[in-house]
């Protein structure tokens, strides 16, 4: 069963230029789906439409097979979390613990159980030692991990990442990804919907969607979609390093179908 299904979704800010143009796709339960696209392709708008920050012009959203309507949107929104791009602008509390607690406070979570819950989720992103720290004392990557804990503490069924790692330095990027992978491994029920323009991140997902000018132009397994150089170039994206290398190697007679560098190295050794 698909967790989230979008049918013929359209949206425009001004009524004439469609930012999201008749998009349909489905996100399987427990999967990691990446949405690729260049700046202005409508990626972030899509995320905002799904969580209800923007109101769609037309189309339907199905959650657990049920249509999301005005009557049940509250329940749907309680099950969806969104993490934004800028680490600073989503840090609401004055310290790490306050920020993680923010969502709990809004849900009227009992005060007596908060401390335990906060510590548990801070630990799940490796921020337990930073509970009393203020945002100014944290790196971008640490702030995003706090945002992750603040989102996960609400026990969402779908976690949407809107370029959550794009403003981070390489080290911050890799730590956030590392914790994200761990979270997904430990919580198989959680569906992750990641909006990115990082092709290497997309390579690790179960399904890739490519957006261009508000239209869904390609959809499928990363192994298939990301090998299509022409489609990628059309949206100004580059093929992943592994696939580019494979293409060059094919030219000198080494054939490989690997999806990661380690596998590729194995194939090169085997070809001799």
């Amino acid at each position: 069963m698909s967790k989230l299904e979008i049918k013929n979704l359209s949206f425009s800010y001004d009524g004439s230029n469609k930012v999201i143009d008749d998009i349909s796709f489905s996100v399987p339960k427990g999967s990691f789906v990446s949405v690729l696209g260049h700046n202005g392709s409508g990626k972030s708008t899509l995320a905002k439409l799904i969580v209800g920050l923007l109101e769609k012009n037309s189309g339907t959203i199905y959650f657990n097979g049920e249509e999301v309507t005005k009557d049940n949107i509250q329940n749907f929104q309680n099950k969806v979390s969104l993490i934004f791009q800028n680490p600073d602008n989503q840090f609401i509390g004055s310290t790490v613990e306050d920020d993680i607690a923010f969502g709990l406070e809004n849900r009227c979570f009992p005060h007596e159980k908060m401390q335990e819950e906060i510590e548990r989720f801070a630990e799940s992103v490796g921020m337990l030692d930073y509970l009393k720290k203020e945002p100014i004392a944290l790196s971008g990557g640490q702030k995003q991990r706090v945002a992750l804990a603040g989102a996960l503490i609400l026990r969402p069924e779908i976690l949407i990442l809107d370029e959550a790692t794009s403003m981070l330095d390489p080290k911050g990027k890799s730590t956030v990804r590392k914790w994200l992978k761990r979270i997904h491994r430990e919580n198989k029920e959680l569906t992750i919907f990641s909006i990115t323009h990082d092709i290497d991140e997309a390579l690790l997902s179960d399904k890739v969607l490519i957006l261009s000018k508000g239209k869904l132009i390609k959809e499928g397994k990363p192994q298939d979609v990301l090998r299509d150089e022409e489609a990628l170039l059309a949206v100004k994206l580059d093929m992943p390093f592994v696939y580019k290398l494979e293409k060059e190697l094919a030219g000198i007679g080494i054939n490989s179908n690997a999806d990661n560098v380690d596998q590729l190295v194995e194939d090169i050794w085997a070809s001799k």
Partner: protein
Amino acid sequence: MSTMTFGRYSFRDTFVHRLDARNKIFLTLLFMVGIFFQFNKWSTSLILSGIYIVVLLILMLISRVSLIALLKSLGGLWVLVIFLMAIYIFIPTNNPKLPVAFTIGTLEVHWDAICQSGYIIMRLVLMISLTMILTSTTKPMDMTYAFEWYMTPLKPIHFPVHEIAMTLSIALRFIPTLLDETERIMKAQASRGVDFNHGGIFKRFGAIIALIIPLFVSALERSEELANAMIVRGYDPKAKRTRYRLLKFSWRDLIAFLFIGLMFAGIIVLFVFDRTGEPIDIINFFFKVKGF
């Protein structure tokens, strides 16, 4: 901008830090009101000032607030100090109790004027120091909770108590972020040739515009993103919420309350004596200084 240390909260585990924010705000105000009582006899004022300063120093010692940081931040006050001095010296004193200190032309300047200006300056310094102790030992978040608590009686008349407290706490949370941003924009504009430090008032004003506009644009963008982040995490200003931080009145608060309360009561008693009965004249009693 990291030099902006005046009254910024710093985490330490001291007696004062652990006090309930509501209590701290109340006691700070009580202390300030006490400072502002005016006595007939200079001797009483002088002795009380000494007591205030000693209490303040003890408070700073307990709360481990740096005296050097305080003095540094008071350094900017000298313009005000000179201004106050000048006003008190050039305005003739009504019924002086003390002899003439010196004369400027026909204007007789009494010691009263000098004492009065000194007294005012001392009060000012005490007020600032107290505020600084309050803000550097209280988490901004706790402070807003305390304000919210004090404003609760206004809720029945639909005064947006919670909204104001939340706005305040977010404003406080974003001060360091926006200061960083200011510094970044200043550097970026300086690298494009904007000169913030030289030139006449109009030139500088132009330079400030090159700072203010980008700062406002970015602050507005931030606020929109922040609002979105809050909505996504289920915030509704009208809805009922629970609290992670609860303010608790503990035995420490009782001790602090009794201490400052007794001091305040002492000031009141002295004041009543000073106004109604025979003025207490401690200095005259010990040192026989006529009229002081």
